[in-house]
């Protein structure tokens, strides 16, 4: 079920476009943030109703883009370490291994308290300050194991 607040925001977004359908990407992201992670089938039906499209068309979008966590819930803090070329050249693998050790989980997993999920990501457009990672909406750059420790501590 979409909250009234989300409905109102989706309505506002549709005004940006010639077609309501164009609001589907923002709508999915709003719902994902509002419900703390996982978009449900019911949410997609509600979005479809609002945008006057079919639920399967919303589903098609939700399953195409990597930032929607549809059917793959994440913890409160989603750590995404870039593993692409510029970061790999500056030992992103070491950063990933260090986080795995620190949190006691493997890449792709979530800590038992549902606090952290660790994933890898493709190039995040921050290659000049590699290696780097994103946690929720924020970028952390020029990483070293010490720096990673300090960043993770900040979430305690």
């Amino acid at each position: 079920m979409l909250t009234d607040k989300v409905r109102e925001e989706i309505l506002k977004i549709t005004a940006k476009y010639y077609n309501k359908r164009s609001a589907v990407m923002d709508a999915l992201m709003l719902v994902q943030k509002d419900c703390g992670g996982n978009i449900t089938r019911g949410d997609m039906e509600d979005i479809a109703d609002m945008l006057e499209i079919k639920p399967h068309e919303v589903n098609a979008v939700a399953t195409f883009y990597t930032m929607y966590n549809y059917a793959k819930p994440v913890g409160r803090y989603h750590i995404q370490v870039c593993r692409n070329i510029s970061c790999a050249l500056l030992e992103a693998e070491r950063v990933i291994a260090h986080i795995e050790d620190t949190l006691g989980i493997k890449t792709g997993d979530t800590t038992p308290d549902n606090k952290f999920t660790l994933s890898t990501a493709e190039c995040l457009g921050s290659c000049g300050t590699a290696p780097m990672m994103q946690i929720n909406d924020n970028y952390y750059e020029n990483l070293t194991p010490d720096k990673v420790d300090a960043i993770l501590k900040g979430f305690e």
Partner: protein
Amino acid sequence: MEKILLKNIDKPESHKIESYIKNGGYNAVREALKLGPDDIIQRVKDSGIRGRGGAGFPTGLKWSFIPKDPTLDKYLCCNADEGEPGTFKDRAIMDNDPHLLLEGMMITSYAIGAAVGYIYIRGEFEFGAKRLEAAIDEAYREGYLGKNIFGSEFSLDMYVHRGAGAYICGEETALLESLEGGRGQPRKKPPFPALAGLYGKPTVINNVETLACVPAIIEKGVEWFKSTGTEKSPGPKIFGVSGHVKKPGLYELPMGTTLRELIYEHCGGMRSDKPLKAVIPGGVSAPLLVPEDLDTTMDFEAMGAKGTMLGSGAVIVMEEGTCMVKVAYITNRFFSHESCGKCTPCREGTIWITKILKRLEEDRGRPGDIDLLEELCGNIFGRTFCPLGDGAVMALRGAITHFRDEFLNHAAHKGCTA
């Protein structure tokens, strides 16, 4: 060289409209409104500027394809998807000098007759999207956006559209599909977006850096713009250098700067005493170059003549000891992950290539694997719906050509000889 693209980014509060105006901003758009659309398009054509998003298409020519019919709605879409691995230049402009992009978009919209402009920004750029939205609000507040800008007949609305994680949405027709609320899969061309683009209407799609050059072309003039760079690739260019150099980062330099000058003068050379092994000059779709090529100039023609491309100007520098099989594996893993799934050669081919490279990298290769890779490349190249697959193949072919022995040694389980 006088900077035009990165001139403001280190100034205090550079993202604010007051700071932008104080440093001479929004004069070019006033001047442009006096010139009129045809004159602006002619100037941009005369400047010789070519798109900075990767393909290097002449910008003025692209604009001139837009029908002049005033009854037709037209759109401007700024390509801020910045997904080509190694590329991080557009983000710097959007984060720190968003009004430069806005001013470039205002002039462009006026020139092509668009009343609405969208900035398609990749979803991960939360910070940049917020900065752009704040800048757009400021511009409306000052009357620089909205109805009758500067008391003229010209009205313009501008919006930010956020992506959600898909490299392919940087391809211009996939971007349009995404903007219309669909899966980001490329469209058949023709019709080209200039005739039938967003919502079926004439549309110009330009990269952030291209649009950010426009105010200077109007204000400083065509001759000024052509006085930097090379004859066929004029103007300044942002080179984003990453990898094994002392000072990675963004460098705004004339087109035609040599790789040697870029790496050894501007970036301070290699980070350690290990010498240079290879350099990817234009994002991972561009075939790599080797130390013998260091005196090649960074422009569309010279890079093309070397069998590679300037692409987005993302220069990835690798020192001796870097395993080229691993580099190829990482790159192709990316391409297979990002293939949109629309056409078979790219969707299936990039997966197979990645599988083979993975086993080579892990020393589980089979005899004949290199031939197999080359055969797969042949089945992808030129047979895909969009250039994503071609990019993957060109880069891989380049790596195998230059470092064949390394690939063969991996296939023969001799371990990494890098």
